[in-house]
């Protein structure tokens, strides 16, 4: 009798406990991602690269613009990477500290990649979701516009823009922003077409929810998985794109630099026995790309386990 009473009290206490927290699909995905070792390693590398890019200048002994005239003409043997001189990564062909330059270049490259991916995520997702959800003639007009924009050889247009309006980081961001969302909008539209016919969207319509609210509340969150995966794979694409532009000598302007520009400069000095000038930027370029690819793969496996 007494036991039963105690049971009842216990039961009441349990019932009174705070609301049970549910495991969202996001929490499930996080668990799957954390179990993926390659992806977590990629993420760790990414965090380290980001720390390097944004706080590396604290460690640098020299300003990135500082030209060490004492090394002029003697880069190959006196500008080698060394801890004593403070040029951890050596100097570049102009006698500037390569460590500081690499920090700066990595920062610019990361920014270019992230800005490109961000534009793609925001503009591309909304554009595609609206086109897919509204459908009909609106969809036709919006997607044909994307087709037309895609058919323009953008590398060519961007190079022309950089030549006409002058080389600036703003132009570069603009150019990359202009193209990055096109693919994303197509992907988002395709997914929206299938989400639109799900019953929960119909339920929302039948409830009287406004169309734009439906897009934001019901369509976009269900697009998020594929959008996140695609954007992590888009970041390295943008970095490569920027590097290519910089490699052609049209990207960021001196004294600013990017990984592509640094690799370009290093490559031009290859015959002079100063391989470190290309090696260090190249190393950061490669590990950043690899880390992004691993994280992207991990996210894809985590977010849609069915499609593995």
């Amino acid at each position, binding site marked *: 009798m007494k036991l039963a009473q105690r049971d009842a009290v216990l039961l009441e206490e349990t*019932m009174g*406990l*705070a*609301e*049970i*927290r*549910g*495991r*969202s*699909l996001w929490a499930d995905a996080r668990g799957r991602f954390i179990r993926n070792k390659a992806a977590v390693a990629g993420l760790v590398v990414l965090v380290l690269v980001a720390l390097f890019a944004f706080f590396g200048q604290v460690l640098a002994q020299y300003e990135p613009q500082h030209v060490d005239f004492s090394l002029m003409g003697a880069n190959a043997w006196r500008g080698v990477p060394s801890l004593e001189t403070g040029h951890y990564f050596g100097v570049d062909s102009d006698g500037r500290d390569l460590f500081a330059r690499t920090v700066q270049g990595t920062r610019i490259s990361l920014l270019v990649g992230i800005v490109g991916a961000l534009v793609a995520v925001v503009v591309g997702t909304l554009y595609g979701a609206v086109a897919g959800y509204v459908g009909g003639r609106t969809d036709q007009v919006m997607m044909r516009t994307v087709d037309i924009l895609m058919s323009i050889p953008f590398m060519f247009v961007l190079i022309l823009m950089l030549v006409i309006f002058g080389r600036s980081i703003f132009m570069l961001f603009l150019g990359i922003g202009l193209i990055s969302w096109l693919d994303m909008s197509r992907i988002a539209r395709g997914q929206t077409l299938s989400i639109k016919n*799900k*019953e*929960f969207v*119909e*339920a*929302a*319509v*039948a*409830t*009287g*929810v*406004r169309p734009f*609210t439906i897009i934001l*509340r*019901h369509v976009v*969150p*269900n697009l*998020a998985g594929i959008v996140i995966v695609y954007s992590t794979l888009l970041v390295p694409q943008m970095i490569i794109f920027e590097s290519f532009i910089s490699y052609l000598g049209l990207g960021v302007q001196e004294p600013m630099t990017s990984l592509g520009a640094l690799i370009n400069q290093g490559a031009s000095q290859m015959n002079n026995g100063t391989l470190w000038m290309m090696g260090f930027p190249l190393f950061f370029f490669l590990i950043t790309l690899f880390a992004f690819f691993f994280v992207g793969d991990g996210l894809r496996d985590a977010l849609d386990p069915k499609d593995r």
Partner: protein
Amino acid sequence: MSPILSVTDLSVTFDVRPPGAWPWTPPLKLQAVGGLSFDIEPGETLGLVGESGSGKSTVARAIIGTVPHSGGRIVFDGKEIGAMSESARRRHRKDVQMVFQDPLAALNPRMTVGDIVAEPLVTHHPEVERAEVKRRVGEIMERVGLLPNLVNRYPHEFSGGQCQRIGIARALVMRPKLLICDEPVSALDVSVQAQVVNLLKEIQADMGLSMIFIAHDLSVVKHISTRIVVMYLGRIMEAGPAQEITRRPRHPYTQALISSVPIPDPVLEKARPRPILEGELPSPLNPPSGCVFRTRCPKAQPDCAEPGRDRMDREGGVLVNCTYHEVRDALAV
């Protein structure tokens, strides 16, 4: 008492573009529903029965206003739905709510159950405070037999029957005047079906709402409906009080539907005569002339193909869309 919903001569037509046609060729007209009329009194349940493709769901969508109707009138609470503006239609949806067939697919997988149930409330009354929303969500969840402390869970953590209860809670949170259940139990186990049907019955009696209950299974419909409308290819075949339709079906199609409900007694099941329907539903793009059912009707006569054969006979309280009908006692449903 005036009916809460009055449907008169409703027809719904879809444009269908034949595959590979030029963009400028006129689309084909697919008549999903034609000449449908019925009334629903307050507090009444109307069962809508028919096989797949008979236009039951289209009727539901026309009433809710997500599918435009091409002819006839739908008058809900004194207002014609076709004449409503977009914003008036959104307000109309406050009073008409719907429960869907696939319980899990009808819930957004990225939203918590609490948010799902609260959505109609938040949509139509954005000024209500969060605490009040929470209280009402908890109240309605308790009403449908769910613990209110489950509000932070996600739909995939529930069983089919529980998901359907969530769907019902969402439909009821606004206290609608009319609830449309579009095959609410056909995706559930038989034991859960009974629970959900009983829940709907209870709630209806409690809240005094009117209901349209769509199903392809007469045995489910007869439990909950006061009146039944039997549809075939978008037309009414037979309509009348539930008892009358299930006990003494007049139309050959209703008789076939009833005979397809299994009797849980093997001896009786074997012994009873079965007018089995052959073939498929004809294409609604090209419906048969005269009576639309004649191509599969076991009692079809040559003159059934004549135009004008699809007229209603009124007999007692029952409408029958067949000239050659005869009353036959159904064994059991």
